[in-house]
């Protein structure tokens, strides 16, 4: 059973200043993920994206998928 969103109104109504929206997130998502894979603090370099990923379920799903895909398939060479 899914959790009731009304149980955490603070999260339900999260609207953090500095959230750049989905477009900037899409553009730099690969750079963000690459830093994470390198064990670096991606949120320090891209704070706006870190904020956005906390609040946007669509971009968070894409981020999680990209992190996994880059980890699994990122070492493929051209030939």
């Amino acid at each position: 059973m899914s959790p009731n969103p009304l149980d955490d109104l603070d999260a339900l109504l999260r609207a953090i200043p500095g959230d750049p929206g989905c477009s900037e997130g899409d553009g730099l998502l690969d750079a963000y993920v690459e830093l994470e894979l390198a064990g670096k603090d991606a949120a320090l370099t891209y704070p706006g994206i870190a904020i956005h990923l906390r609040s946007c379920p669509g971009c968070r799903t894409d981020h999680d998928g990209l992190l996994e895909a880059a980890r699994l398939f990122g070492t493929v060479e051209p030939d």
Partner: protein
Amino acid sequence: MSTGQRTGLDRDSLGWLDELCDGHPRREQAIARLHELLVRVAVHELGRRRAQLGAVSGPEFDDLVHQSADDALLKILGKLDEFEGLSRFTTWTCKFAMLEVSNKVARHTWNRQRPSGDLEWRSLPDTFTPPPGEQLERREQLLALSAAIEELGARQREVFVAIAINGAPIDLVALELGSNRNAIYKNLFDARRNLRRALAARGYPLLSEDGTGT
């Protein structure tokens, strides 16, 4: 990307860019290899999103895989000059596959559910009405929120109720409303901010000013 910018790239990324250039003798092989990578990413990602896809298998699943990989490949080949080297080339390409999968999954779900009218996300669920046993302050807070939602503009109200309350996928809502994810997210963000302010104005400020928990 200029020759000067290329100096910071890793060896594999340089190899990809070189071989994908027009006129390179191994360009076709590199494109085939890239397509193979995109197919693998799409298969993996569509598997990860099975819950949203529903009962899709066989040729239908394969179609989604190849549509995603084909469209991602076209976009990548058309944007090679825009690769800035902020990530490995493969990570950059995986991003295009990911965005195509997102798009295809949303459209597939929408095509399946829309005709049967299953998009029941426009009304506040019963659970929104606090039960009699709920603490008085909690009851009043929820009633204040309910009233504030009713006062939102039509688009913000629809988007907020669909995504935040009823858990509808943002891409599905974007398709239903003839919009895109970024615009719908802006509606959602504004709705959340307005509701937070409205609750505070009614005497029910939340723990933090913006939801950061600080």
